[in-house]
């Protein structure tokens, strides 16, 4: 006699400790195994793309902070890159180096949070997260020194950056960068050989190479599946072509590989910051750009390698002061396309681990 079973629908609703923000997943469960998942978006939809058409190009920089609010600097960088491509503006060298330093610090901070929250979702009860936050606090203090803000920086401007770094920044940065590798190593030691972390992350949520490319995954998700693709090397922007760094890739594309790729990228970011600090020249920090910029008619797409993937801004100009169309290529949303395939057939506990390893920020998903 076969047992009659039923599937039921469970809402990992907008308010849930593990869905990194207001994001909803409707699971269809058979016991503990997920049969189907339907992600529901739009809880944080603010209509940024439409709002941006009502403001000038420089006023739109403020909106970009709020897209991926955990990595504001890189958002700024992508947008001003797109505008500079559109209007043909050259950026002075010192500004480029400052942008690189800020962006790489942002990458370290975002990866610290991603790794910390992944471990929190697996169940390690805040302890690794708070260790990560201790280091992130130092980064936020550095940012506070430069632009006075800790979350939404609004630091970059069209044609450069808004403020120069104060004198106490360089020694503070040096202290932080020198202490960070030892900390990351200590962190690795605590967790790499922990059997429970290994069995919760290995072979869980494997994304094959072909799937990763087909799903347009980007960033650490793509690289963990074994594809060496990093915008900083493939389509170098700013002064990245002057630095020596590597692109860490994974082998299988499971949760463990994504976690390792992020940790390795932190090491690479440290190397980039060290080289940037040596090479940074004196000079201006912003080219003279008219207050109200009126680029010529045309279009441009500026892309950068953000911490979560390829972040790009597609700008269309009609010759006026406001952009005619601003489109954000959201890495979080596009990485989530693979979610349904990854989650089917998996237990709830693993679902949270996989979801945490994709590392989204809902501000970017919904815009």
């Amino acid at each position, binding site marked *: 006699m076969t047992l009659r079973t039923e599937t039921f629908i469970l809402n990992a609703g907008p308010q849930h*400790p*593990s869905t990194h923000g207001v994001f909803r997943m409707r699971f269809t469960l058979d016991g*503990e195994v997920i049969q189907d998942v339907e992600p529901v978006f739009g809880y944080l939809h603010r209509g940024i793309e439409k709002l941006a058409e009502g403001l000038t190009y420089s006023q739109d920089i403020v909106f970009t902070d709020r897209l991926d609010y955990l990595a504001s600097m890189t958002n700024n960088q992508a947008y001003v890159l797109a505008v500079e491509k559109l209007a043909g503006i050259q950026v002075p060298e010192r500004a480029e180096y400052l942008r690189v330093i800020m962006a790489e610090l942002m990458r370290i901070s975002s990866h610290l949070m991603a790794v910390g929250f992944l471990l929190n979702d697996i*169940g*390690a009860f805040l302890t690794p997260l708070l260790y990560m936050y201790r280091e992130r606090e130092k980064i936020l203090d550095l940012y506070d020194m430069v632009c006075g803000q800790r979350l939404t920086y609004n630091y970059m401007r069209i044609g450069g950056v808004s403020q120069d770094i104060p004198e106490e920044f360089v020694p503070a940065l040096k202290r932080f960068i020198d202490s960070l590798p030892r900390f990351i190593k200590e962190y690795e030691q605590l967790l*790499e050989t922990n059997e429970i972390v290994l*069995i*919760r992350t*290995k072979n869980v949520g494997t994304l094959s190479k072909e799937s990763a490319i087909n799903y347009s995954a980007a960033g650490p998700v793509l690289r963990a599946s074994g594809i060496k693709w990093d915008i900083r090397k493939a389509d170098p922007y700013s002064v990245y072509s002057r630095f020596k760094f590597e692109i860490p890739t994974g082998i299988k594309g499971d949760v463990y590989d994504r976690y390792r790729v992020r940790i390795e990228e932190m090491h690479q970011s440290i190397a980039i910051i060290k080289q940037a600090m040596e090479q940074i020249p004196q000079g201006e920090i912003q080219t003279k750009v008219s207050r109200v910029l009126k680029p010529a008619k045309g279009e441009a797409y500026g892309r950068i390698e953000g911490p979560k993937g390829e972040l790009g801004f597609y700008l269309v100009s009609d010759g006026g002061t406001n952009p005619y169309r601003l489109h954000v290529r959201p890495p979080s949303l596009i990485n989530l396309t693979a979610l349904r395939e990854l989650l089917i057939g998996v237990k709830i506990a693993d679902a949270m681990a996989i979801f945490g390893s994709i590392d989204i920020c809902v501000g970017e998903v919904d815009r």
Partner: protein
Amino acid sequence: MSIFSNVIPTVIHAAPLAPDWPSGFWSHLIIFVVILFIFYIFMAMAFIYFERRVISRFQIRIGPNRIGPFGLFQPVADVIKILIKEDIIPGNVDKIIYILAPAVAVVPSILVFAVIPFQNGTALIDLNIGILYIVAISSVSTVGLVMAGWSSNNKYALISAMRIIAQVVSYEIPMALAILGVVLFSGTLSMNGIVQAQTVPYILLQPLGFVIYFLASMAEINRTPFDLLEAEGEIVAGFNIEYSGFKFALFFLTEYAEAIAVSAIITTLYLGGWKGPFLPPILWFLIKVFAVFALIIWVRATLPRLRIDQVMGFAWKCLLPLAILNLLITACQVVFWPALSQWIIAGVNIVLSAVLVVLWSRFFRLTGDKVEA
């Protein structure tokens, strides 16, 4: 402690307290019940405070330090807050079961304290089937948790209730088998008898049994790494998702009462209960209980949680065979070498345990995949 030295004799090798101290059956019962309740509440609050401070130090932060000196009145503030909360009963829950569930969960965890010896012979009642009583009673609180999960009419609670049944029932068996090893050595089921029989603490004589019992009882009381029954990240507090106010306080109290009970049982069975030099026995008992609880907190602060199929695999494929082997070895030692010095047996057992643990970790796969770093 002066109250205790005036009222209760604290001679080191204390003569057993008369079972009807101070003056007859009923006064013994009433006074001891009152003392136990005070102990229970006081220890629960002390444990809550202790855990919050210690976990905070693990997480490089300070922990509660505002209310009272060193934050000592934090648990009092929490209790007051919870007691004055509005008691919400959601609309479509199964009312009777919903209201009864916290009571069914909390009462067995208090009943366990009836047989735990605080000093030589000082227990509410020194049952001669003490440990059997404990194993029987502590399983009843599971029914309360499942009642809560079912009656809440909430899918998260239901998933949690199913997990509870699976996990708690599976870990009963290795737990009971580990206890049997201790009983074989001590020859008596009475808790006080077990403590008195420990010339060598049983943690040395039964290292494997200690580990098995420790892990199995952590799984019974839903502590990390087995706390998936109320995993906040996945099923958002599980069975007590619809509870607030005093009923939630009772569930919270259950968790800590079971932790105290498990620490007390481990102290009695494996660490030599109230035995120890120089200090009064009650103090030794408290020190050992706190030491075991500190170990439990340490594990909670460090390890992530397991998945339900890994938890089940661990119980049936790892702990159960090891517990049976432990029982077999202990039985052979008791039958064939009853006169051998216990220290030699302890040495043999430690070596055997190490060999068995290494052997199992080579061949044991939690989910079927070999894990390599």
